[in-house]
C-alpha cells in the first residue's frame, strides 16, 4: 500500500469511483434499514429492553421514549436515500452519521464491527465531495459539478476498507485459529446439511483450509485489490469469499453484500467513468463542460493534521489490546473496535449472588428477570457487561429497600470448544469495582 503522502494530499483524480461509492453506500444502507425494521428489531432491541449496556464514557446516551426510536430509524433511512440521490448531500451525511452512531451507542449488546465500519465511513463521507457529479445537488447547482476529486477522498475510503480487512486478518493470527482450526471446527460441521459442500464441511481439513484461506484472504486481499493487474481476480475472490460466508453464516446479515458493494472503490477511475457514463446516458444527464475552480478542495493545514490523526487512530486502535495482560479472547480488554470478526466460539452463563449486609439475607438473581435473551447471552461472556449489570442490579435492589447489597457473579464460559470455566472471581463484590481503561483484576485466568 504505497501512497506518496504528497500525491494523496494534493493530487486530483476521477470523481467517478467516489460518486458510485456514495450511491452504493446510500442504497445498501437504505436496504439494511428496511431489513432491520422488517425484522422487528427496532422495538426488540431499542424499545422493549428495560436496561441498556452503554459504552464507557457514553453513559448519557439513552434511547428515545415512545415512538422516538422509529423516528430515528426513519431519519437513518431518509438520509441514506438522500445520500444515494446526492440531495443536500452534506447535511444528509451528517444526519446519517449522527443518527446511525447514536443508535449504535445505545447498547453494546448490539455492537457489530460492520456497524462501526458504517459509522466511520459515513463520518468520512461528510467531508468528501461525493455529490459533485451524478447528484441532485450538482444538477440544481451546476457550479458544484466536478469530474475530479482530490485524491485524499478515495484514498481514505480505500484505507478504511483496507484497515477492516487487514486487521481482521491480523486478528486471525492466533494459535486457536491457525493450529486448532477453531472456531471453524465447530461451526463448519454444524452446516453439514448444506447441499454440495455440506459433506466436505465435516472434514477436519475443511476447517483448516478455510481458517488459513480466510486469514490469507483478509491479510492480502487489499494489496491484490490495489494492484491493477490482480484486481479483477482479487475482486472475484471478494465476491466468492463473501457469498461463501453468507451461505455458511446467514447470521452475519447484510455485511457480505455491503463489502462486495463498497470494495468496488478499488477499481480504477476509467472503470467507474464507464459505469457512470452509462448511468448518465440512462438518465439523460448532460454534464456541464466547464470545470469549476477546485482549489477550495485542496487539503491544507488543519485538515492535513486531521487526516494524519484519523489514519493513526485507525492503525493504533486495533492494536491497543497489547496494553492489557490478555489472553485477549478470554478477557476481551481492547476487543471491540478492532475488526475481530467471526473469530471465536464463546458462550457462557452467569448468575448473580446477592448478599444484603444489613439483614444478612442471601439469594440469587437470574439476569433473565431484567434482560432480553440477547442481552443476557452477550453479557455472559463479557466482563465489562457483567460489571455494568451488577451495578444496575445494586440500584434496583436499593430501590426495593436494600441498603448496601453485595453482588457477586458466578460465571462459566466456554471458549472455542474448551470446557467451561469461571470467568469472574466469585469472591469479589462487583458493586465496589469500577469500570475504567485499566485492566480488570477480578477476571480469572483462562486455564
Amino acid at each position: 500500500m504505497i501512497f506518496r503522502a504528497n500525491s494523496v494530499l494534493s493530487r486530483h483524480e476521477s470523481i467517478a469511483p467516489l460518486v458510485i461509492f456514495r450511491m452504493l453506500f446510500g442504497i445498501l444502507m437504505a436496504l439494511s434499514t428496511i431489513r432491520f425494521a422488517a425484522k422487528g428489531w427496532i422495538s426488540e432491541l431499542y424499545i422493549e429492553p428495560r436496561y441498556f449496556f452503554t459504552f464507557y464514557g457514553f453513559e448519557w446516551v439513552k434511547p428515545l421514549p415512545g415512538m422516538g426510536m422509529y423516528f430515528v430509524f426513519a431519519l437513518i433511512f431518509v438520509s441514506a436515500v438522500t445520500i444515494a440521490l446526492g440531495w443536500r448531500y452534506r447535511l444528509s451525511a451528517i444526519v446519517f452519521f449522527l443518527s446511525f452512531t447514536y443508535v449504535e451507542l445505545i447498547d453494546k449488546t448490539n455492537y457489530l464491527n460492520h456497524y462501526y465500519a458504517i459509522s466511520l465511513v459515513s463520518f468520512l463521507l461528510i467531508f468528501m465531495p461525493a455529490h459533485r457529479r451524478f447528484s441532485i445537488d450538482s444538477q440544481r447547482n451546476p457550479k458544484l459539478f466536478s469530474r475530479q476529486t482530490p485524491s485524499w477522498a478515495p484514498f481514505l475510503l480505500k484505507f478504511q476498507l483496507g484497515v477492516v480487512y487487514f486487521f481482521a486478518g491480523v486478528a486471525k493470527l492466533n494459535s486457536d485459529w491457525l493450529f486448532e482450526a477453531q472456531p471453524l471446527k465447530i461451526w463448519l460441521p454444524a452446516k453439514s446439511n448444506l447441499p454440495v459442500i455440506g459433506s466436505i464441511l465435516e472434514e477436519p481439513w475443511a476447517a483448516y483450509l478455510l481458517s488459513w484461506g480466510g486469514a490469507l484472504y483478509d491479510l492480502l486481499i487489499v494489496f491484490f485489490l490495489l494492484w491493477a493487474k490482480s484486481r479483477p481476480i482479487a475482486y472475484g475472490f471478494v465476491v466468492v469469499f463473501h457469498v461463501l460466508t453468507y451461505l455458511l453464516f446467514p447470521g452475519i446479515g447484510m455485511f457480505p453484500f455491503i463489502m462486495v458493494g463498497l470494495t468496488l472503490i478499488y477499481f480504477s477511475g476509467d472503470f467507474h467513468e464507464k459505469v457512470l457514463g452509462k448511468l448518465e446516458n440512462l438518465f439523460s444527464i448532460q454534464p456541464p463542460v466547464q470545470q469549476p475552480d477546485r482549489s477550495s478542495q485542496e487539503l491544507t493545514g488543519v485538515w492535513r493534521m486531521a487526516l494524519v490523526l484519523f489514519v493513526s487512530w485507525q492503525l493504533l486502535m486495533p492494536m491497543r489490546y497489547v496494553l492489557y495482560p490478555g489472553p485477549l479472547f478470554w478477557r476481551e480488554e481492547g476487543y471491540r473496535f478492532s475488526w475481530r470478526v467471526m473469530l471465536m466460539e464463546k458462550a457462557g452463563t452467569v448468575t448473580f449472588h446477592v448478599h444484603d449486609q444489613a439483614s444478612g439475607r442471601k439469594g440469587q438473581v437470574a439476569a433473565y428477570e431484567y434482560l432480553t435473551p440477547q442481552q443476557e447471552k452477550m453479557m455472559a461472556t463479557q466482563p465489562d457487561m457483567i460489571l455494568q449489570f451488577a451495578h444496575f442490579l445494586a440500584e434496583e435492589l436499593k430501590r426495593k429497600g436494600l441498603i448496601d447489597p453485595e453482588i457477586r457473579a458466578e460465571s462459566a464460559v466456554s471458549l472455542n470448544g474448551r470446557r467451561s470455566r469461571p470467568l469472574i472471581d466469585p469472591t469479589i463484590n462487583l458493586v465496589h469495582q469500577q469500570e475504567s481503561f485499566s485492566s480488570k483484576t477480578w477476571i480469572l485466568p483462562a486455564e
Partner: protein
Amino acid sequence: MQKLVTWSLLTALGLFIWSCGEDDDPRVDDNFDQKSFLVNIGTNLIVPAYAELKDRSDELYASLQAFVATPNPSNLEAARDALLEARMAFQYCAPYQFGPAEQLGLVADQNIFPSDKNRIESNILSGSYDLRLLSNSAAKGFPALGYLLYGSEKSDEEIGNDFLNDDQRAAYLLDVAETISTSAAAVFTAWDPSGGNYLAEFTSDGALGADAGSSLGILVNALNLSLERNTRDAKIGIPAGIRSLGIIIPEATEAYYGGYSKQLAVANLMAFKRLFLGENLNGEPGTGFSDYLQARSSVSSNNNELSLEAAILVEFDASIALLQALEDPLSTSISIDPAPAQQVFAQLQKLSVLLKTDMASILGVVISYQDNDGD
C-alpha cells in the same frame, strides 16, 4: 499468473493440512447422522410423550366426570390418582415446549403454578369466566385441579360435599379438566403423522443444521429454557427462597396441594436425562445428545479426564440423587430446612451450565431465544 500463484498456494496449503489431519483420533466419527438423531427424538420420545399426555389427560377428564356424578371418597381417590398420572405424563413433555406446544400455549393451559385460589373461587362464585384468557392461567391446569381436589385442610368427605352441594364448583372442575384434555389432544394431533405431522417438519432436510430455526437449534434452546426456568427456578429455586433473598415460599411448589412436588421434579429431570441419552419412555436406547457429543469430541480441545457427555451424565445423576433425597411434601420439608433444596438448586445450576454453555457451543447452536445478526 496471479491466479496460478494463489491457487497453487491454496492447494499446497490444503495438501499440507490434509497430511497433518491423517493421524486424527480414529474412533471419532465426525459424520454424525443428524437426521437419524432427530428422527429418534421426534418419533420415539416426543410423539409418544404427547400421546401419553393426551391419554392421561383424557382419563383425568373421565375420572373427574365420574367423581362429579358421584362425589364419594373412592371416586375422589381415583380422580386424584388420574391427576397424578397426567401430571407425571406432563413432565415428559416439559422439555419439548416448542412448535405446536408453544403455539397452542400448552403450559399456560396445563401447568402454571402456583395456582391462584382467590381467582379460582371467584370464578366459581361468578360462574362466568373464560378459561382461554391469559389472566386465568393461574386459575386452571393441573395446579388448579390440585387445589380443587385436595383443597386445604379439608377432609375428603367435606371436599366431596363441596362438589355435591355446589353445581358451579363441579362445572368449574370439569371445565378445567376439559381445557387440559383439549389442549393435550391438540398438541398431540399437531405432532401426529396422521394429523398435523409436525414430526415431518421437525425431521425434514430443511430443518437440519444448527442455525436459528433448525430443529437442533430449537430443541437445544427449548430444553435449556425449560430446564433453567421451569425445573431449576420454578420447581426448586423459587420455593426454596433463592430468588427472594432466602424467604421460603412453600405455596410456590408445583403440587402444593397434592404434596408430590418432588416426585414430579424427579420425573421431570428423568425426562431431560432420557432426552440427553436418546432413550424412549421405556428406557430403551436410541441416538441422543450424548452420541452427538461423542461424534463431535474432536472439536472440544481440552484435557479433561471426563468427556463432555460423561461429565453431563455425572451432573444428571448427581441432580437426580440429590432431588430423590428431598422429602415430599416439598412445601413442608423446605419450610423445616431449605438447605437440601438449595443444594439441589446449585447442582441443577451445574447441569444447566454444561448443557447451555458447553453442549450448545460444541454443537454450534447459538443460545438465543431471539433472532439477531452477529459477527
